[in-house]
């Protein structure tokens, strides 16, 4: 067992700040990284020490393994937390960290490699007796061969980047005639995002839900689950609403799904925090989708229903400690919902937006949480992911949590940049959401109902009044500065002395 004293956080924005929170509580020093264009972002200087990665493409900065290791060693860090995205699921990085005598806060490189590849993971999962979706995971990447395989599995079909994640390089194909064009586009996107254009095919389930199980394992053979999260509501294959518990999971189904998840973590002798993603169909059948061998963006909902600090647990197991509970002691209490605030325009195909954030609001209700990577005055650029923040609310029931989150979204404005804030409010207010009809095509199904309604006259009148009052105030401030200038100029003779 080795106590960690200083963690280098190989990540940015809200997740870097999240790791710092826990590290501070545990008395561990932190080191943060930033690029030249991120100097004014809060994570840049949030660590006890911070280092600039320079500028340029990601491979020169956040994906530059050698540079990051060099910084970690030079500042005397004894552990590296990879956050999510970037290097978090790159097994060579985990290897490099440990080879340099540092602790990688995450699973063993072998686990990342095994589960990171969609092909090898599916084979392993089948060996362990956990069901997965019918598909083609072969090496023959010839377009016409893949088209034949797609026909064998049956349309609709899903094309996925083998090395992928976050929906990049992913396409649904309804008809055979559209297959080759979609394949071309998926391969191109995949090559750009991951440097690899290998794809796999899967049967596309028509009304699926995305249910995932949070797992946590220590190095003494103790494997736990922290219940499920439902993350069905997605746009561009990225989650935007996540919750725990799932309105679709009965206690019987929960027992089955968590048991399957633990079968996997035990079967691969996993270490640390991970997420096992399943697709749940309308018959209550579930299929293994993939395993994320890292902390998840949506981990706060699990933290809120279990009362546990997932980053702390990650650090404890990285130090070689026993997890301080039994499965029975972990309870799922109340309901938590998270929404992801993105700089984007939901009314124009979720096209990312850029700009200067003039003002950020904050939530005021109890049991709400804003994990935000920006402060007033920050620039949102095209260089990084457009996620600005995560807003989470906890309450006794799902209905109350949704209500609370809706009110909080009213407060958490990001003025200056077009965001999906109002769109998220429309989702949370939709009767279908409140009834729990949350399938992965939710956004598409309720497209019409989710369109913005024109503001009522009272709201317009109040907005106009706020404009008039604000302008008046600015004017009077301006005048007082003018008067001040006058006062100075009238003192001219005095100042000349």
């Amino acid at each position, binding site marked *: 067992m080795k106590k960690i004293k200083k963690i280098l956080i190989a990540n940015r924005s809200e997740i870097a700040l999240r790791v710092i929170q826990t590290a501070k509580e545990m008395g561990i020093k932190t080191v943060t990284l930033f690029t030249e264009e991120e100097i004014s972002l809060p994570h840049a200087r949030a660590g006890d020490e911070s280092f600039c990665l320079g500028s340029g493409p990601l491979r020169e900065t956040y994906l530059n393994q050698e540079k990051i290791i060099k910084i970690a060693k030079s500042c005397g860090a004894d552990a590296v937390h990879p956050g999510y995205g970037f290097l978090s699921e790159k097994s060579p990085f985990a290897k490099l960290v440990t080879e340099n005598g540092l602790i990688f806060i995450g699973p063993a490189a072998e686990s990342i490699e095994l589960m990171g590849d969609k092909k090898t993971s599916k084979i392993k999962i089948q060996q362990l007796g956990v069901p997965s979706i019918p598909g083609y995971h072969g090496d023959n990447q010839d377009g016409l061969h893949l088209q034949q395989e797609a026909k064998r599995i049956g349309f609709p079909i899903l094309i996925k980047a083998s090395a992928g994640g976050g929906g*990049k390089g992913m396409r649904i194909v309804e008809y055979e005639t559209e297959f080759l064009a979609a394949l071309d*586009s998926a391969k*191109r*996107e995949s090559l*750009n*995002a991951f440097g690899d254009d290998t794809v796999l095919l899967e049967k596309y389930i028509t009304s699926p839900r995305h249910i995932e199980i949070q797992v946590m394992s220590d190095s003494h053979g103790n494997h736990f689950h922290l219940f499920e999260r439902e993350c069905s509501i997605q746009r*561009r294959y990225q989650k935007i609403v996540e919750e725990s518990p799932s309105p679709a999971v009965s206690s019987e189904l929960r027992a089955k799904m968590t048991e399957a998840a633990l079968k996997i973590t035990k079967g691969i002798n996993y270490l640390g925090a991970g997420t096992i993603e399943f697709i749940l169909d309308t018959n209550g059948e579930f299929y293994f989708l993939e395993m994320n061998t890292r902390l998840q963006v949506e981990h706060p909902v699990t933290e809120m229903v279990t009362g546990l600090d997932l980053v702390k647990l990650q650090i404890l197991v990285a130090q070689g400690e026993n997890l301080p509970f039994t499965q029975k002691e972990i309870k799922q209490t109340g309901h938590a919902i998270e929404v992801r605030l993105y700089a984007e325009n939901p009314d*124009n*195909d979720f*096209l*990312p*937006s*850029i700009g200067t954030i*003039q*003002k950020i*609001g904050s939530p005021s209700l109890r049991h709400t949480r804003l994990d935000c990577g920006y402060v007033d005055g920050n620039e949102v650029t*095209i260089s*990084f*992911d*457009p996620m600005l923040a995560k807003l989470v609310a906890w309450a006794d029931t799902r209905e109350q949590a949704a209500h609370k989150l809706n009110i909080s*979204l*009213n*407060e958490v*404005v990001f*003025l*200056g940049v077009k965001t999906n*804030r*109002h769109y998220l*409010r429309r989702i949370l207010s939709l009767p279908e959401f409140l009834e729990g009809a949350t399938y992965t095509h939710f956004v598409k199904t309720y497209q019409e109902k989710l369109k913005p309604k024109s*503001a009522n*006259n*009272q*709201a*317009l*009148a*109040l*907005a*106009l*009044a*706020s*404009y*008039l*009052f*604000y302008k*008046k*105030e*600015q004017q*009077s401030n301006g005048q007082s500065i003018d008067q001040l200038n006058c006062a100075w100029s009238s003192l001219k003779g005095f100042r000349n002395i």
Partner: protein
Amino acid sequence: MKKQFVIDEEILEVDIVEEGASFVLFNFAGEEYSINLGGQQNGKMSLVYKGQNHTAIASDPFYVVDGEEFVIGAPKRARAKIKSHDLGQMKSPMPGKILKLLVKEGDIIEVGTPLLVMEAMKMEHTIKASKAGIVEKIFYHEGEQIAGGVELVKLC
């Protein structure tokens, strides 16, 4: 006094009867609105209308009332903005890279025809034609980095 304002790119006419530092009275869309300012600090204000308090946040030109966001300005500035929208040119919505051209010069296109695929923020976006016509000129080639708001394709 009749005044025009542009709220979310739409021109609204308001008849202002009284306008003070903490009280306004105006007629708008056939209704009379008498609104008081409860307080204002750092762009955060409380408005009182018919005995009910409303929260507003202002950071010009953005105004939020009870969570609803509006862009408000004087008409002159906004008219110029509307004009530039009217040119009918296909522009890049943001900086990024041209991945693939889907049309060539001389092609006849219709509204909604996919013109090109660009990549921004690690995602692909398809730029579609906003009007019909014949492609006269394509200003960029595949692989080229482009700025936001630049004209991509000219139609004749």
